[in-house]
């Protein structure tokens, strides 16, 4: 007699139905699409979307469908020619307001899309694109922090009328060393250093030549500083990547001090790296209120002691005084917040800049102060057929505001829109980016190679699976067909899980899926061979099925655990496609256990269960 609990049937059915639903979006394929986003990063309104649609119709460019997704407009086309025509037309007409990016949009029906069901995103090896790995110089970030501590220490000691022999930041020990000459009041010096060395581990050592006081950053502080540097760089890179108008870019931290950037569909790496590799700094300066900026702009030169700039946002000229109040490396933080007057950016400077700021604001109340973003980039142009590259410095005013009060190292900039405040904080932080990053790995895959890779992967999958299916059906007859159904369910379940996790699929990932099919057979084979053995012993068919499942369980568990160990190690130590392979391997083990143990048990019990008498099994 063979029975299976009703809830287990229900569970199997429910899981398979859900899996089918989630796997479904992968079977519709993709269309070329154009992604249109607003330059100021605010959401696309439906009227603006309609305007673009109408514009495309007017230009006789056919599109299949358009919808807004995450604040951006996606327009799907029947072919690439239409897609390119649309891009050129939109770029021509709306250059100032929108950024366009070529991409692919799934042909998923509206209903599934609204429910949040999407196909697996494809890795760069399958869709073509550029992969860059940047190294962040985290040590220089720590060195900067130490330099800041050293400066603060010198200042504090000077205020306390103590003249140190030497104050040095020690990079290797992540410490600042203060050497006091013999005869100094050490207690007073320690008291003076309490404030600048706040949070550091302070130790002092008396020697014949004097006393050495050392403030050491704790490992946690060092790590925090490094994380800050990396986070800052990631923010900057994201910001710049968005500028490139790439659809679905990925910028993420890798390991301790690396950032990987993945740009699907991008081919021209030189241009991209120019934009990403820009070094930016900031300057806070007073506005020149005596002279008229408009006049200066018309003349094309600035009066003595001033310099002419352009405001990024409004395009109007701004005259700034030459003296710099504070620079980007003195900016310790810039965050968005709320003030009584709406969104604001809170700024923190280090002690030295704070002092300067205090002096300046005291003398210049109600005058205007501006923030200048200075970006260095490399520009390549063709002169007489030869490529010439030169370094270009772009200096623009990103914000100017009236000084409303006296402040030192902490203040806020108000009178901004919410989006503006976020952007300004981002720009300020990116302008304070003093840690150097450089590319250490670069991989580019052409789009045709990507298509070829997909084709090969899918062909291998189909051929491999067909081979296995035929073989199982021949070898185990009806039971083989059951195993085939279970294998198919396994692939669907795996696809559904990967789609739900939004894990991007690469070629090794496809290899992992194919391999899982091979592996999943193992569980079925273990069970069926057991059933055959039981039948040979002369056990009744139903009892044989039952015994087969029971006795094969420990072997199935064991054999899967061993593969799981290898999968987990790969997942922990691997990166990129190898991690993708590991994810597929691990999930594949889970799905194949489920389908082989529960799925095939349910099917076989349905077929041979109950009290019916069965003469023989087709196995």
């Amino acid at each position, binding site marked *: 007699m063979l029975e299976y609990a009703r809830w287990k049937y229900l569970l199997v059915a429910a899981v398979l139905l859900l899996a089918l639903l989630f796997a479904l979006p992968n079977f519709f394929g993709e269309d070329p699409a154009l992604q249109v986003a607003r330059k100021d990063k605010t959401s696309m309104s439906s009227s603006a979307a309609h305007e673009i649609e109408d514009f495309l119709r007017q230009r006789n460019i056919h599109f299949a469908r358009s919808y807004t997704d995450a604040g951006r407009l996606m327009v799907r086309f029947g072919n690439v020619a239409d897609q390119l025509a649309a891009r050129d037309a939109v770029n021509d007409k709306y250059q100032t307001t929108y950024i366009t990016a070529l991409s692919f949009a799934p042909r998923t029906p509206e209903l599934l899309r609204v429910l949040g069901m999407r196909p697996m995103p494809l890795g760069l090896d399958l869709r073509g694109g550029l992969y860059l790995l940047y190294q962040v110089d985290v040590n220089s970030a720590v060195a900067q922090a130490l330099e800041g501590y050293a400066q603060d220490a010198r200042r504090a000691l000077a205020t306390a009328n103590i003249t140190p022999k030497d104050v040095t930041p020690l990079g290797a020990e992540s410490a600042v060393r203060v050497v006091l000459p013999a005869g100094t009041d050490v207690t007073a010096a320690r008291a003076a250093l309490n404030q600048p060395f706040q949070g550091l581990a302070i130790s002092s050592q008396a020697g014949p030549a004097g006393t050495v006081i050392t403030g050491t950053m704790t490992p946690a502080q060092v790590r925090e500083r490094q994380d800050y540097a990396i986070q800052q760089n990631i923010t900057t890179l994201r910001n710049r990547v968005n500028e490139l108008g790439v659809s679905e870019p990925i910028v993420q931290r890798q390991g301790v001090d690396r950032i990987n950037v993945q740009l699907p569909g991008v081919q021209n*790496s030189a241009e991209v790296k120019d934009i990403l590799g820009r070094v930016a700094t900031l300057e806070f300066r007073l506005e020149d209120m005596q002279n008229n900026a408009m006049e200066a702009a018309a003349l094309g030169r600035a009066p003595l002691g001033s310099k002419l700039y352009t405001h990024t946002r409004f395009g109007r000229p701004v005259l700034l005084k030459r003296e710099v109040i504070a620079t980007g490396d003195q900016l310790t933080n810039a965050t968005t917040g709320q003030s009584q007057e709406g969104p604001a950016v809170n700024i923190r400077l280090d002690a030295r800049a704070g002092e300067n700021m205090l002096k300046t604001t005291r003398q210049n109340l109600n005058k205007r102060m501006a923030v200048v973003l200075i970006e260095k980039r490399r520009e390549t142009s063709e002169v007489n057929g030869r490529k010439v590259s030169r370094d270009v410095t772009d200096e623009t005013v990103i914000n100017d505001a009236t000084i409303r009060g006296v402040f030192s190292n902490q203040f806020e900039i108000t009178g901004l829109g919410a989006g503006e405040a976020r952007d300004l904080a981002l720009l300020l932080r990116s302008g304070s980016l003093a840690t150097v990053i*450089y590319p*250490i790995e670069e991989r580019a895959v052409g789009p045709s190679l990507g298509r070829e890779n997909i084709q090969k992967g899918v*062909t291998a999958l189909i051929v491999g699976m067909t081979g296995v299916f035929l073989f199982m059906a021949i070898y185990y007859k009806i039971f083989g067909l059951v195993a085939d159904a279970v294998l198919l369910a396994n692939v669907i379940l795996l696809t559904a899980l990967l789609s739900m996790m939004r894990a991007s699929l690469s070629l*090794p990932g496809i290899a992992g899926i194919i391999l899982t099919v091979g592996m999943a057979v193992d569980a079925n*084979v273990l069970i069926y061979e057991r059933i055959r053995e039981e039948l*040979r012993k002369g056990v009744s068919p139903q009892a044989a099925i039952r015994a087969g499942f029971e006795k094969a369980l420990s072997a199935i568990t*064991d*054999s*899967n655990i061993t593969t799981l160990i290898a999968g987990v190690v790969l997942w922990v130590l691997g990166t990129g496609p190898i991690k993708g392979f590991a994810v597929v391997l691990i999930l594949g083990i889970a799905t194949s256990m489920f389908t082989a143990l529960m799925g095939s048990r349910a099917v076989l019990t349905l077929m041979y269960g109950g009290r019916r008498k069965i003469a023989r099994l087709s196995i």
Partner: protein
Amino acid sequence: MEFFSHQTNYPFMATRKVWYTLSALLIVVSLVSFFTRGLNLAIDFTGGVSAEVSFPQATDVDTVRGALVAAGFRDPQVQNFGSSRDIAIRLPPSNQTASEVRQRLDDALKKVNPAVQVVQLDVVGPQVGNELKVSAAWALVFTLAGIFLYIAFRFHTWRLSLGAILAVMHDPILVLGFFSVTQMSFDLAVVAAILAVIGYSLNDTVVVFDRIRERFEGNRRSPPDVVLDQSINQTLSRTIMTKVVTSIVVVALLFLGGPVLKGFSAALLIGIIAGTYSSIYISSAIALDCGLTAEHVFPSVKKAALDHLP
């Protein structure tokens, strides 16, 4: 259909000296080749540049090589692949950043033919390559360590553990040997395949050992070599069946998956064959030679631990 119409009864244990010799021979060849010839490491590990470029017309590899040398690249490897228009280039690592190398390569190739298309380009800095070598080595160590622990936990006697461990080490050595002898490109995907092989290889051994334990439980008086032979024979059709099916998909990958997966699938195929062989001929034989008896598997009163079905 069945591979064996009725229960087989091959005397695996009696012939074990032959298999030991064969394995020892293969391992010696693998190790000698590994230490003398080494592996043909891909740029994943060495750092450097690997590019695939496509010219509109057939282009002489020597012209391309000349242009690269003229641009200051040290010993470039230039080969045709696929057709006479498609060329693969490999350059040794340098101190320059990825972007500088890319720029120089682009310029040099454009001089040969301005319409050249770079189909694929990988630039790996030397430090990345070195780190990968280290992390690949760690991956192998961790996997082996994890499996050692698992075996120690699963089989309470060191005799079985030793057999399993030696069988598990046997297989990756042969895969490494294969890659060293053939000088096939050894990349990161091959390391992934070797780790998977370690997992699969043990899987067969565990299934056989599972059966050995079961047989000992019922026949505590039977001589160990007979029990081991019975266990292997009883699991033989499963072992072969599973491996044939897995091989079907791996062969499909090998021939249809394209050049990216060639090394990966070759490593898997060799590993699966080696793993099947070692779990049949090596692991149990070593346990037997270590003096395995029923007493080791069931030290005290036997206890039937029945697993619960999920």
